[in-house]
């Protein structure tokens, strides 16, 4: 495909993206844009980030061949890109380290973030502890309940967690509240957005900081297999781990890029988070992308068993890749994801995050067919320790019924 089309023009990916924000934020986005460009040209910035990723985060992460998973899926080689082995247990920290460095460059002493599952909140709190920045995390109070462990981790790291009781009380409303905070405190505060969503330049900043996942994978698979993968699979809520691993392969038309959304209780039930499969173009949180919405343009509540995918929007670059036919997007139910959560634990001794379990469920179901295209790589975006109490609760409730 034409690589130029992927380069955002005025913050757009095709017709998607843009900067649909209150006027108060325009100056801050301009400031961030120029700080990011300057950082990109500064070798010292790259060196510092690289050293942090190596010594603090633990990169590169392994590309691990999961032989028992292969057998169970009934096909050829399946590799897991082990983002769960990053410090703090997920890919989120790749982005927060980069953005915390940007905050410091801009002289902003206060950082805010939204979080769903709590992984981005923990990764932000971690970066803020390291750089001695004041840190406030917004989290829907439904998520505060289902991700109690991560709430305590954030507090332990010195962050203040503010529970949001407005609207759907999940990631969408935590994001609204973070944006309101940013509008109010914009002069001394940097908003570390957690996914490839939001107004330009956020989707490309987050993608660029996450692109290390795909760069490493590309090198590793060529060493291990002597060729590129046939398929790359990743779960998609906002879509940052997916964009991170896809980016290095977008120019390779032979590599099938598959994003797995959350079908919740089934897309027919209306209780799901499959924005790309079931939504239509709309504007939320500053960007034009696919969006779950009703006939009147009101944002529809999303649902997923996994708090990190429970979001009615999706990153604009995914909308672009889908419409351009460069990536395809499928969906997996809560039930199937819970099944994969158990299977990977038993098969490989790896407890995946519930978000990641969506990508694994797809590979388990379609593994044989996928393997025909060549090696399969799954972005193992996070570890599942945070989900253990939540899943145990669901299963206890299920057993009582």
């Amino acid at each position: 495909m034409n690589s130029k089309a992927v380069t955002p023009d005025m913050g757009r990916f095709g017709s998607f993206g843009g900067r649909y924000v209150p006027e108060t934020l325009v100056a801050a986005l301009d400031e961030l844009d120029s700080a990011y460009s300057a950082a990109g040209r500064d070798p010292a910035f790259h060196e510092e980030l690289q050293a942090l990723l190596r010594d603090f985060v633990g990169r590169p992460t392994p590309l691990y061949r999961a032989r028992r998973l292969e057998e169970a899926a009934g096909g050829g080689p399946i590799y897991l890109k082990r983002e769960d082995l990053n410090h703090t247990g997920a890919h989120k920290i790749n982005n927060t380290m980069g953005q915390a460095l940007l905050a410091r460059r801009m002289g902003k002493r206060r950082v805010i973030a939204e979080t769903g599952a709590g992984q981005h909140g923990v990764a932000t709190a971690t970066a803020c502890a390291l750089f001695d920045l004041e840190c406030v995390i917004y989290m829907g109070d439904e998520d505060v309940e289902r991700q109690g462990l991560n709430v305590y981790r954030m507090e332990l790291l010195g962050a203040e967690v503010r529970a949001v009781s407005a609207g759907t009380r999940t990631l969408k409303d935590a994001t609204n509240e973070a944006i309101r905070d940013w509008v109010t405190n914009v002069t001394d505060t940097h908003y570390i957005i957690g996914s490839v969503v939001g107004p330009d330049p956020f989707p490309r900043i987050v993608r660029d900081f996450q692109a290390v996942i795909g760069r490493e994978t590309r090198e590793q698979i060529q060493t291990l297999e002597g060729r590129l993968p046939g398929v790359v699979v990743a779960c998609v809520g906002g879509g940052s781990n997916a964009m991170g691993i896809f980016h290095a392969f977008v120019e390779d038309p032979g590599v099938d890029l598959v994003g797995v959304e959350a079908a919740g209780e089934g897309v027919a039930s209306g209780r799901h988070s499959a924005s790309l499969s079931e939504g239509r173009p709309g504007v939320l949180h500053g960007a034009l992308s696919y969006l779950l919405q009703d006939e009147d343009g009101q944002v529809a509540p999303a649902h997923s068993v996994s708090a990190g995918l429970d979001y009615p929007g999706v990153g604009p670059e995914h909308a672009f890749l889908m419409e351009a036919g460069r990536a395809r997007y499928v969906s997996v139910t809560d039930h199937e994801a819970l099944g994969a959560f158990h299977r990977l634990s038993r098969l490989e001794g790896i407890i995946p995050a519930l978000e990641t379990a969506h990508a694994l469920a797809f590979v388990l179901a379609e593994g044989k067919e996928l393997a025909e295209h060549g090696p399969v790589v799954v972005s193992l975006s996070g570890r599942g320790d945070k989900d253990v109490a939540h899943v145990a609760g669901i299963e206890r409730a299920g057993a009582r019924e």
Partner: protein
Amino acid sequence: MTGPNEMLFGLQEKSSVPDPRPSSTPTAPLSADTGKIAVAFRRCAEEGRAALVPYICAGYRSREETLELLVAAADAGADVLELGVPFSDPLADGPTIQRASYEALRAGMTVRGVLDLLRAFREERETPVVIFTYLNPILRFGADEFLQAAREAGAQGLLVTDLPAGADPELEGKIRSEALDPILLVAPTTAPGRVEEVSRGGRGFLYYISRTGVTGSRSALRESLAKEVEEVRRRSTLPVAVGFGISSPEQAELVAQWADGVVVGSALVEELDRGGVADAAKFLGALRGAMDRRHAPG
């Protein structure tokens, strides 16, 4: 800004001489209706007072009550009305207008419902109306269809909170050519050079946000506000109305000395909660009275 014309906080009132600057720069064929907002502001300037611009969330408490409130506001001396389309994710709004939006949606208000309300209001009064909305409901309605429907329902202006000047030239062009006045916002964070650009893209009036933050009443205005308003007025070819946080007759009186208009939203919702349309109208009357109080030149 310094110099002989420097305005000291709250001591000097703005010139009440009619502003010779063109307050509307037509770029498309305009119907006889366009310019009604400009006319309203010009009339205020001629009378040496500031325009009162209440924000009313469509469908809050009930459709009937919104219609009553619109009429009462017009009768209490509103010069221009802002009619708000409720949205599920009002991220530029504070708790009061968020709550009004959610309740209006729960009570069944829709974009079509807002246009119906406006049509009903037009049977009663001629006060110019600005539709105040987030972008997504009008995108879903269909931008072209919405602009035409809004025009036909009797709107004169359109303010889209999450469409800052320059964000979507195609859509902004459509709004201008649909003979609705684009009401654009300037914030304390807006770069000085950009104020002129924003002003050029708007018509009717320019909306100055009194502080960084979301909507909602505050007990105090920022000390630098008078100077900021003066600076924006100097750079703008349009009259400048000030909103966000103005919640008492005293504050309205003060702001009316610097600005061409005063926008009141959250405080009006709070009055509506306290005592219904009657109290809300009384509150607007008090604002009107305070704003029209004559001040000896400083």
